[in-house]
């Protein structure tokens, strides 16, 4: 896993204790489950909680 370790550095130590995204399909009119995932560049963490107060457009996709 050495290469993996090198490719995905973590900047914030607290992230290590942070749960990743919660499970479940989004439901209209219900709170969206919290999302916590590493970003694709490995440099930070993506979370919905930090965006509370803003309107959010969440795109789930693949480059293929």
């Amino acid at each position, binding site marked *: 896993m050495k290469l*993996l370790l090198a490719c995905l550095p*973590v900047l914030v130590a607290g992230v290590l204790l942070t749960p990743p995204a*919660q*499970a479940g399909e989004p439901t209209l009119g219900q*709170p969206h489950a919290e999302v916590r*995932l590493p970003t694709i560049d490995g440099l930070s963490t993506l979370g919905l909680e930090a965006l509370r107060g803003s309107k959010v457009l969440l795109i789930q996709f693949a*480059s*293929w």
Partner: protein
Amino acid sequence: MPVWHERTKALRASGKLKVIGITQEQHPERCLLFARWKGFDWPIGWDPFNITETKVVPRVTLIDEHGIVRATRANLSTFERSFVDQVFKAPAETPATVKPVPGTLAEASIAKKDSPERSYYDGLSALLWPAGRDGDKALHAITAYARSHPKDAAAQWRLGVAHRMRHDSDDRQDGDFQLAVRHWHAGLALDPAQYIYRRRIQQYGPRLDKPYPFYPWVAEAQKKLGKAAPTLRAPLTGSELAGRGEPAAAPDEKEPGGAKDIERLKDALEIESTIVWHTSAKRGTAARVHLQIRPAGRRILLWDAEAGPLTAWVELPEGWTVDRNRIDRALLGIDKVEEVVELDFEVRPPAGNVKPFEVTGYILFYACLERDGMCKYLRQDFEVKVPGHGK
């Protein structure tokens, strides 16, 4: 997604809208390459284990300022009027924490310490945020959980993802890729409608199982970005570039001349094989065979890339077919002594035959030997045992 990127540019610039992305791809740097190529300047989360339990992509969800879901299939032509321009009322009560669904990762994340569920969750987290954490311990925890939950489709599939991660790392072990494929199939068998699971297998599988080539845009993106292009951890395989409707590679059925007389070595190369069957037995029993070829340290000093390409010759039992018997592959260069050469080809058994069989053949290659520094044209034979479909 480029269309959403363009359509939301002004809204993002004005601060009226935040855009974020999530991808389930195995290799994050491929999506990073795509994002840089397309100019995506919004954050994208990496969810290789499908922790979000997404069933299908692409999907665009609209979430208001209070965290409430307002659309799960956003409409490009109406979302600005029906969402961005609206003022949504705060919920009467602060939404209670959503109770996690039993058996899901969300439940595992709040399980008590030292429980298998918690170890499983910690293992997945360790592979997502690996700095300073023990990858093998993580894989062991995920393995233990999957074994004790044989009907948990996500656990089976995620174990496959973890094995493929190790396969792409410096700590790879022989068989990791095949184990990944086996567990991906196990997850799909338990949840056949799971699009994400199916796509991961099809990425490496036979042509007729492919809806499209997965990464045909990579070369163009790398060319455009130049040095700004991220390094790809795993090289693209032929199967990832092959499309469903495309013909097999241009046939070059001529067996290399004089192959019988070329000096044979038995252990100059390490040749690992991985078999990926079609995701549905009903739609065909073709399989793709992946070979990973690397110099065995003690025998070969380096590939002699300038002397010529590596050539593989593939033979099958009578009645079985292969999309190409001969594969020529140029090597990168003399400074790439540890270059792993990845080859793949597609095999098809006679109609109705799903029994195990063997693929045989040989590799011809130019290399300089450790023993005397001499550079020669060499041959190493190989044999791949292919289990029956679904094995």
